[in-house]
């Protein structure tokens, strides 16, 4: 197989959607926080926690969907903590976010070690199975590439569309955008910027938790502490790449996943001639290049990272 033939295999494209799913969840989550004016660097830790708590719920006998819900609630809880510190108290969003990441990651390992005995092979669960969409999955190529995914993948794509529509076309979406652009303008219109920001951060963080849970509940079937592997940071970059627009976030996540899926297959072709670590770098390198091209034209929410304090202007 040649390096270019990889693109002709339906398996690659199926893998792209699968790899993109946690990124879509995470990027949408970070995007909603940022559109309301709050940077949430807690994402890496929140995804780790979501991956663990989702897996743990199922491991303890819970349903897979209950696991996903548990991850969303866990994410929401850390989101609430982040919001209380950065929105209510107006603390530095960078420092708080990094603190949340460290705290959530450590708490994750702690709970995991406490509940699961140390062993050579980590315990497994039965993950989400591939759903073949009737009729559509019978299409040649496209059927296998797009319409044979697990339920959370379909959910992620649907969410991207719903959030894009919601931000642009609903009163709530407009309220979120105006709070992120100028909270004083929002307040003058009778919108409470503090409540809205807290809500956005909690909801966005819930999505981050679900993104993490996809890793343990669909992509793999077990949990290990380092499994998020910087995906949270990729999501933060994807938000910039997407110019804070959900439909572009979906595209950006797919593009990054394409680089990742491609390099995995490239490793097999090139074999041992080149150290595989070189290929691991490709998606990150490509995302920096893409950022250079896209981010220069990005329209940043004007009030991003500016705490809002009532009665101050």
């Amino acid at each position, binding site marked *: 197989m040649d390096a270019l033939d990889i693109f002709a295999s339906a398996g690659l494209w199926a893998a792209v959607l699968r790899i993109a799913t946690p990124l879509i969840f995470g990027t949408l989550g970070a995007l909603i926080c940022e559109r309301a004016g709050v940077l949430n660097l807690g994402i890496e830790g929140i995804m780790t926690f979501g991956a663990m708590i989702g897996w743990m719920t199922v491991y303890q006998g819970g349903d897979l969907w209950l696991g996903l819900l548990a991850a969303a609630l866990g994410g929401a809880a850390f989101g609430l903590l982040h919001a209380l510190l950065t929105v209510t108290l107006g603390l530095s969003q960078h420092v708080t976010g990094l603190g949340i990441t460290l705290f959530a990651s450590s708490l994750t390992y702690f709970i995991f070690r406490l509940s699961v005995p140390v062993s050579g092979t980590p315990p497994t669960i039965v993950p989400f199975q591939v759903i073949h969409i009737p009729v559509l999955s019978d299409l040649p190529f496209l059927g296998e590439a797009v319409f044979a995914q697990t339920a959370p993948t379909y959910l992620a794509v649907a969410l991207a569309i719903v959030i894009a529509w919601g931000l642009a*076309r*609903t*009163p*709530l979406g*407009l*309220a979120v*955008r*105006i709070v992120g*652009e*100028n909270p*004083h*303008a*929002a*307040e*003058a*219109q*009778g*919108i409470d910027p503090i409540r809205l920001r807290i809500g956005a951060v909690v909801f966005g963080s819930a999505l981050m938790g679900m993104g993490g849970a996809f890793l343990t509940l669909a992509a793999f079937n077990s949990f290990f502490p380092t499994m998020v592997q910087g995906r949270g940071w990729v999501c933060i970059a994807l938000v910039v790449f997407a110019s804070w627009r959900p439909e572009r976030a979906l595209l950006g996540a797919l593009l990054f996943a394409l680089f990742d899926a491609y390099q995995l297959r490239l490793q097999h072709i090139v074999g041992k001639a080149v150290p595989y670590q070189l290929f691991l770098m490709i998606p990150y390198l490509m995302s920096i290049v893409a950022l250079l091209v896209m981010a220069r034209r990005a*329209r940043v*929410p*004007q009030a991003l990272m500016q705490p809002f304090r*009532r*009665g101050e*202007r």
Partner: protein
Amino acid sequence: MSEPVLRLEGITKRFGTLTANDDVTLELRQGELLALLGENGAGKTTLMNILFGHYTPDAGRVVAFGHELPPGKPRAAIEARIGMVHQHFALAANLTVIENVIAGTERLFSFGLDKSSARAKLKELSARFGLAVDPDARVGDLSVGERQRVEILKSLYRDARILILDEPTAVLTHQEAEKLYATLRGMAEKGLSLIFISHKLHEVLAAADRVVVLRGGKVVAERRAAETSKDELAELMVGRRVARPQRDVQAPGAVLMRATSVDVMSSGTKLLSEVSFEVRAGETLGIIGVSGNGQSALGQLVSGLAKPTEGRLEMLGKEIQAPSPRSFVAAGVGRIPEDRNADGVVGDMLIWENAVLERVRGSEFSAAGFVRRTPSRAFAQTVIERFDVRGGTPDSPIRLLSGGNMQKLILGRNLATSPRILIAAQPTRGLDEGAVAAVHAEILAARRAGTAILLISEDLDEILQLADRVQAIVRGRLSPAIPIGAADPRRLGLMMAGVWDEAA
């Protein structure tokens, strides 16, 4: 006399030890245009923010249309049909006009924004009140005057019957301001009741029905506009008689600074275009213009921060090849920067440090790489005494000074060394009458001593009082100079709008 639509009763608000409003009582009647007059810090904006629910008062109540408003709830004020136009516009630049207007007007958790009926309503309001603006334009692309119309439309869209405007003309040209007041009068005639905040006496006299004067947080007087005068209001506002110093006639000397067809570019945009001017010893050249028309670039050019990309800049008869702030200071250029907090002082550093900062490398204030503290402190003390800087010693942080005293210190550290050229960019922006008079007196004293002064200002009165000649700055271009004798507010207003030939 009709019933009051709005009553503020015994409003008191304290910030720490400062009493911003002290037992203020105020009434507004239907169809009335009321002016709230006062100096900076008199408590005007605080009072209006309490009325609109941005602040909670420590005592007192607000009654609108017979109902008491709950304190600290902007939403309640909106529902009581009170609208507020803030001095610093509360608009989201990246959103469209219509989005800014309808945000928060519909139930948060509902589907679909009804933009088309909103658009129709907005167009109807625009036509009825003469507030033309494109509903689908991005607010960031609009002019300042248009943004203000959006602000007013926001309130009208929510059926406001009472409108509060905080210093509405602060950012407008003379013509725009006149048009705004005509619009406001029209609104009052259609039954709306309006309060506007101002410290500009001529506006208050020309536009308002009634004037309430605030001083030190208290209502000190109330007059019908027809029955008072500029002098009386000035005295009520300041608490004593204030006369702005007048310029006396003197013949200018040699040209000390000259620009010939200078362009300044920054990241691909032309900030200044074919700018030519000259300033002579003992003469003040006034540059008038609405902010954002290239004043900042001009200020940077003449203080060595920006380099001409085309044209010649000469100082003291020599062409400047490689400008830098240090070489300008060394050559005897004194500078009063436009934004005193950002470019004029370092807030957390001490007054004496700020006083010598520009020239700390000179032998007067340093030796062998060490700062000479004793002469530095002595210099700061001299400036404080000579220029009447109040509120601090050489060893207090400069941020503790009020704007006026900070400006006097900046002026003082420049004038104490008798500069050949003085660049004064918006020297009295945000200062109150007393401080304005003090700054003007010092600038006139420098002029008498033979300093060439370049005065960049948005304030017509300031230019008319201080300048010998005037040029207008419009979108990075300078008009030809006219002698001050030929200038009046109308002609300057036209020049500021870019109409040079017809104005001549």
